């Protein structure tokens, strides 16, 4: 228990402030949506699938995050009981995932539709199972055992999507949770700690110029999850035109540009690297020097996503003109400039995990502004 509490305090804060904030946010979200009177027909499988995939992704981010790795170092320095540390670590990260992230998702779902007690319990257990399965899969992947985690995940998804029974999903979730607990029983706490960085071969580079573009490109390619997120956005750009059906009197094209500016990892470069932020504030002339090039880099990334989206729109719906290209460039530029401005003026501080950083409410400010602009342009056009 002591170990769990120690890890939990690092994740939630000394007085578990994160839990209180999350509960408050969930209550506000729930009652706001409930009061809005939205009633949707949502299939239980959608709830289970979303819960499972979302929780698994957040848990994966926590396990692979740099800060969690640094936390583990602190525990390894002290004498520890292996099984206790393994279970405590997995439980604390799982609790953080469910209480600070998945809880908001549940608040949205539960306010929008009526659910039975069985379905709510099943959703909760899907979340728990996702955290357990992800923890075990992480350990297996570290040992290059990829087949079993893939089959395990696929098996759960098949049950969720193709078995029309909440009881079956509940049973699958319980069985997965039990299996994860058994696997963790035999796991070593050291397997959670990443030694990979120390083992890499040192590369001597030929560059002599301090080019910010090059710096950002290296930053992007060195962090695989950032690269995946960016590529994912470009992938979404291909399918976005399919989601936008015909709306009378509203041009939906600009909404896609706004959504594609939501590249959180790249737009929180300074918040995510406090040492870099400190150095940029100490060196002279950085608002102009670094921030200008950072904006251009983001403009290039957003612009590429917008270009993919435009091409896809042209193929699916047609009627792309110069005006639309101009709007795409405008949104890409505004998204880049405002993101950098927010990072410079209002960096996110005191975050405990990369997940907290990536899901901070501030990340929605720029897309929200751009969505409003898109709505205005959509109506005006």
């Amino acid at each position, binding site marked *: 228990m002591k170990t769990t509490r120690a890890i939990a305090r690092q994740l939630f804060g000394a007085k578990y402030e994160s839990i209180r904030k999350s509960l408050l946010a969930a209550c506000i979200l729930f009652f706001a949506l409930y009061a809005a009177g939205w009633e949707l027909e949502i299939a239980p499988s959608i709830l289970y699938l979303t819960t499972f995939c979302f929780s698994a992704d957040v848990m994966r981010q926590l396990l692979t995050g740099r800060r969690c790795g640094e936390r583990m170092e602190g525990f390894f320095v002290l004498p520890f009981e292996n099984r206790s540390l393994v279970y405590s670590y997995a439980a604390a990260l799982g609790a953080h995932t469910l209480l600070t992230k998945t809880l908001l998702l549940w608040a949205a779902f539960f306010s929008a539709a009526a659910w039975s007690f069985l379905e709510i319990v099943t959703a909760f257990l899907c979340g728990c199972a996702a955290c357990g399965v992800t923890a075990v899969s992480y350990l297996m992947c570290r040992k290059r055992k990829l087949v079993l985690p893939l089959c395990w995940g696929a098996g759960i998804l098949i049950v969720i999507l193709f078995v029309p029974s909440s009881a079956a999903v509940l049973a699958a979730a319980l069985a997965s949770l039990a299996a994860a607990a058994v696997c963790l029983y035999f796991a070593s706490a050291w397997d959670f700690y990443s030694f990979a960085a120390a083992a890499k071969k040192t590369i001597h580079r030929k560059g*002599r110029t301090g080019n910010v573009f090059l710096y950002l490109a290296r930053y992007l390619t060195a962090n695989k999850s950032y690269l995946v997120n960016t590529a994912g956005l470009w992938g979404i750009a291909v399918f976005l035109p399919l989601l936008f059906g015909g709306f009378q009197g509203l041009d939906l094209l600009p909404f896609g540009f706004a959504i594609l500016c939501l590249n959180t990892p790249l737009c929180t470069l300074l918040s995510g690297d406090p040492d870099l932020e400190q150095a940029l504030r100490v060196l002279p002339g950085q608002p102009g020097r670094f921030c200008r090039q950072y904006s251009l880099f983001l403009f290039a990334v957003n612009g590429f996503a917008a270009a993919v989206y435009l091409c896809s729109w042209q193929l699916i719906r047609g009627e792309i003109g110069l005006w639309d290209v101009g709007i795409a460039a405008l949104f890409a530029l505004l998204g880049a400039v405002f993101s950098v401005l927010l990072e410079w003026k209002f960096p996110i501080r005191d975050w405990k995990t990369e997940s907290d950083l990536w899901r901070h409410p501030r990340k929605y400010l720029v897309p929200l502004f751009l969505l409003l602009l898109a709505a205005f342009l959509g109506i005006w056009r």
Partner: protein
Amino acid sequence: MKEEKLLSIDKLSVWYAADRPVLSDFSIDLEANEVVGLIGLNGAGKTTFIKTAAGLLEGYRLERAVWNGQPFSFRDREFKRNRYIVFAEDSSFPYFTFREYLDYAASSYGVPLPDVSELVRGFHFEAYTDVLLKELSTGSRKKASLIAAFGLRPSLLLLDEPVNGLDFQSTEFLYRLIGGYKEYGTVLFSSHILESICLTSDRVMVLEKGRIGRVFAGREIAAENIREALSAYEND
């Protein structure tokens, strides 16, 4: 004619929490072309002062700040372009190599790229100049920061615990660099290692209870004198 001071700060108070100032009525004068050591016990406020001078902290007030005879603020562009800071711990620009970082820093300061080959040799840093900074050890990262600092030659160098993490040879080389920097500008460095303070400083300031308690100069700078002053403060 009275020589103008390089930097004068009067009655600086700095706090992280409003009811608990770390520095209180802290005043310091720095002449041009001198080496000043700042020593104090853990938590005395050495790093806090350097971070304030870097413009990183907002919780402060002061009565007067003068740079080269002109009032200034820590975030003024002119002041920034004439000072360089080496922090005790610094993991910035992890995706630059040292050479790329030096080029970037020189452009930021608006100076030509300096020739640091002698500094690189002196710190035995030849094997690391083209390696990403994130792949360097703590000591090597410190060397990279120090080479950039001494290579850029600003009017004022602020060094926070510069000896930390350095090997023996590099430490000796650093002492020589600090002593020789008077030709180019002023060095203010904080340390809790008496040897580094005594070997290199023209003046030593003892930081205690949020302000400069005693100043040693010339022949007064001796380990036993400073140790005695620190012990007296510890027992207060």
